[in-house]
């Protein structure tokens, strides 16, 4: 029964050529490869799973400590620990054939060629991936693509090189740690991205005031969680004013009200990140709540609400 509600076409959305049962996705790095949580969650309800960033080679990631809690948030510096693209192809892609949930592969690289190579490797095999989310904004890897994320022409160049190599959804994931996120979003759009997602984590730091030690091995890490929701909302709203491609909202979502805020601000879909750590069933719960909320609202569907925030000035 519940399952049925969640796939009402009412809350389905389209990004590029792909249609999703609902706009509730889980964010890269917060739901593993999608295979870890099924015991606790009905992953098939989710609109999509964005898998953790995959790099060309396997990566151990950063030494501990990698995470610390902050007020209404957390800082992480995982350092893109991942199995690498070859293992992803060998071990994950076959599993995804048996999952009805749409899978989006998040890709990270240290330079343009790495991104290109990963996409080429994936495109050279058969898979059910619906698209790629390109992480150009990971703040805690020395060469984690951060150069791209702060520069709109490099973002555009990367986007167009990848666009040439895939017909699947191409979503550029934007960093909030910039003076002007809109210009970078424009760069991605003009170079052929199907959508942008915003935001990745915000650069942050935490110190143990007793020992004087950094709470994170790499000193700086990425802030996520409810603390950053206002930052994500502002980013999405600004992007929505200028871009014509869909925006996927990320940052601090823990409830269906948060999802409503993002959609009203201009998001066509959203991703749930940190909240999964507390409860991997957050997305599942929100889908049910959201159906109810839309039902009780004056809106016919989620799609109708996109960008409909009433501004006062």
């Amino acid at each position, binding site marked *: 029964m519940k399952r049925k509600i969640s796939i009402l076409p009412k809350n389905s959305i389209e990004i590029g050529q792909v249609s999703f049962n609902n706009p509730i996705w889980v964010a890269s790095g917060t739901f*593993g490869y999608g295979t870890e949580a099924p015991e606790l969650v009905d992953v098939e309800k989710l609109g999509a799973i964005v898998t953790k960033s995959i790099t060309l080679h*396997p990566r*151990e990631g950063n030494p501990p400590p990698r995470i610390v809690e902050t007020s209404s948030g957390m800082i992480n510096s*995982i350092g893109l*620990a991942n199995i690498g693209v070859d293992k992803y192809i060998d071990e994950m892609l076959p599993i995804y054939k048996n999952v009805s949930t749409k899978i989006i592969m998040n890709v990270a690289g240290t330079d343009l060629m790495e991104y290109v190579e990963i996409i080429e490797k994936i495109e050279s095999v058969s898979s059910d991936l619906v698209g790629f989310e390109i992480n150009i904004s990971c703040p805690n890897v020395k060469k984690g693509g951060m150069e791209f994320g702060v520069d709109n022409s490099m973002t555009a160049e990367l986007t167009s090189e990848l666009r040439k190599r895939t017909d699947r959804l191409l979503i550029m994931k934007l960093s909030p740690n910039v003076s002007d996120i809109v210009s970078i979003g424009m760069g991605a759009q003009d170079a052929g991205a199907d959508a942008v997602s915003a935001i990745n984590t915000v650069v942050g730091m935490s110190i143990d005031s007793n020992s004087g030690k950094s709470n994170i091995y790499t000193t700086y890490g990425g802030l996520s969680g409810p603390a950053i929701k206002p930052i994500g909302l502002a980013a999405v709203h600004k992007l929505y004013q200028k871009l014509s491609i869909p925006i996927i909202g990320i940052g601090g979502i823990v409830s269906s009200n948060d999802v409503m805020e993002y959609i009203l601000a201009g998001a066509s879909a959203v991703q749930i990140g940190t909240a999964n750590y*507390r409860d*991997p069933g957050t997305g599942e719960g929100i889908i049910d709540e959201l159906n109810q909320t839309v039902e009780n609202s004056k809106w016919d569907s989620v799609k109708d609400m996109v960008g409909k925030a009433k501004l006062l000035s």
Partner: protein
Amino acid sequence: MIIEKTIIQSNNQIAENIWKMQFESPQIAEEYAGAGQFVNILPNDDWNHPLRRPMSIASVEDSTLSIIYKIFGDVTEALSKKKVGDAIELLGPIGNVFTKWDSNVFPILIGGGVGLAPILNLKDQCHVADIDYATIIGAKNSNEQFIDHDPENKIYLTTDDGSIGETGTVMVPLDKIITKIDNPHIYACGPEPMLKAIHDFALKNEIPTQLSVESYMGCGIGLCQGCVINKNNKAPKEHSYHEKYSLVCLDGPIYEAEDIYFA
């Protein structure tokens, strides 16, 4: 692994800053596999503290599960204010268990600070299984102790200030008794400096040793990759994955001493 809404059955202070809480938790109790496992607690709806808090299981009897916790910060403080009958959400059971304690070996159980919970649990298990063992328990001072120094029954307490039991760390009684024991196996849980000392002792003296380690956890279920500990792998390849680090929530919290190191 289950997310279970449990009911608090008791919540009492048992020493300075140290509390014991019991839950009615039939589902987790059912899946529970033994001393060493832990639960990930969500004390409230307060998003000021987004993360759950891991706590070792101190005992499981029928459908009742207990933890022993020390008040460190906001969340453990909030935990201490909970009342009998309050609901609380647990995720568990998580992690592996202490192994190889049987009548062929002589387990030396060492617990320090909040690392007592899994050790007391293992102590109960040894007791029930009628295995002879020794227990060493370390604390800062007598106020933090809730177990009696009882050398006749091979229970050795140590305090930093000598206010109860022997003066010094757990290494003092360990050094003394180790030579008198046949086939000793060490099982330890406690603060990192203690684990490090035991770790080095174990490697030097070639004593099979299992350590229950702590690490900062984001999720407890393998999603965040946050909870790593250093693996004692001398030659990880340049491009490797999980050869240098191990996820404490999935692969631990219990490790053979030789498999890990403390930075």
